[in-house]
């Protein structure tokens, strides 16, 4: 019997994109369902499948829901284990990837959001935090082609989905991420050459338009 895979998602969500990249890496066919988050409308299905947090992404595999993007990516890796392993097999390296993916979730999102949702001194402080976090991640990358070495994997997926938002951050914050973190941008461009990534990430211009729209609503420019 064929697997039935549905992904509840929002086109601009860097968390949803992680699931998309993982599914693409594994060559899994799935049905993509867009939630209308811009208008704050959550479908009955989303509320049923993620009653605790009511958030996307939710992966529904043969009717059973999995929530939280990094948990989804690990689930995808474990179920479709015959192709493209995403997590390292060695426990210490796995722990290293999990630690830094957790770091990204703890620190990066809040720092980024403040760049476009605040102004003046608060925005400058957010830019500084953001660059510091990226520099720490760039330090972990070192001279390797990907975070885990020669192969694209879990930690690359955790971070690369923020890349399509960089244009919005740079324009709002009036700075160049490449000037501060050239190795990281080189890594991002390398990842973008993978079809799983280029097809899963949102168009950066559309993301910027979205940010402009939200800024107008919040009264920030």
């Amino acid at each position, binding site marked *: 019997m064929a697997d039935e895979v549905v992904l509840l998602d929002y086109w601009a969500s860097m968390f949803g994109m992680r699931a998309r990249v993982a599914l693409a890496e594994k060559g899994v066919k799935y049905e993509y369902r867009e939630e209308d988050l811009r208008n704050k409308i959550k479908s009955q299905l989303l509320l049923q499948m993620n*009653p*605790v*947090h009511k958030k996307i992404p939710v992966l529904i*595999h043969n009717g*059973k829901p*999995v*929530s*939280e993007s990094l*948990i*989804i990516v*690990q*689930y995808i890796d*474990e*179920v479709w284990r015959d192709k493209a392993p995403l997590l390292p097999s060695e*426990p*210490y390296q*796995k*722990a290293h990837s*999990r*630690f830094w993916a*957790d*770091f990204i979730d703890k620190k990066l999102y809040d720092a980024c959001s403040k760049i476009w949702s605040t102004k003046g001194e608060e925005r400058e402080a957010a830019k500084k935090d953001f660059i510091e976090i990226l520099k*720490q991640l760039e330090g972990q990358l070192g001279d390797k082609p990907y975070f885990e070495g020669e192969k694209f994997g879990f930690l690359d997926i955790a971070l690369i989905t923020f890349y399509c938002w960089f244009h919005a951050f740079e324009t709002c914050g009036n700075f160049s991420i490449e000037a501060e973190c050239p190795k990281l941008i080189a890594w991002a461009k390398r990842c973008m050459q993978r079809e799983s990534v280029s097809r899963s990430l949102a168009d950066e211009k559309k993301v910027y338009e979205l940010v402009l729209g939200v800024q107008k609503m919040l009264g920030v420019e």
Partner: protein
Amino acid sequence: MEEVKLLGFWPSPFVYRVIWALKLKGVKYEYIEQDIFNKSELLLQCNPVYKKVPVLLHRGKPISESVVILEYIEETWPENHLLPEDAYERALARFWIQFHTCQIPSFHAFFGLTAGEDQQKTIESVLETLKILEEQGLGDKKFFGGDSINLVDITHGWLALWFGAVEEMVGVKLLEPSTLPRLHAWVQNFKQVPVIRDNLPDYQKLVAHMKRVREMLVPQV
């Protein structure tokens, strides 16, 4: 020879998660107490990102963040499984482990509880997250892990002693048979598991320590 060391701090529930997991797996380790108010070179070297305990050292290599450490222990010493073998059940377990993270802000607020308007809001927020944990996480099971404890029970283990100490300190009891019957029963069952029963900090010392910390953080109390 397996060389396992644990950098800890005696009142920390996060450190106890690791102690319980190591003991359940029968792993011998050397415990090294840290003074978190006067951090050692070893701690700063082993956890430069967060500078916190617990840190597990295995064959000289450090792993930080208790949840990452728990997954590492599970993979490195597979005897006595502490996570389900089925991929979907494992994803669910990871979801409930991660649920702890979103409880932290309301628990911090509860820890610093003072009289005033916010008190009722804080109490309601804590009760709400505990109700979700009880109804959707635990359900009718004896333990989160079913008939025996697993990493989900270990992650929420702080409710078995530390939460009671906070309740005593702020003078508000929330985890009662009348308000949270199944979670209350879970606490009693959890504390009777031999590895847990034999590895808990002294309750009075804990309350005294928490009072001191609270005085430092909440000067007007």
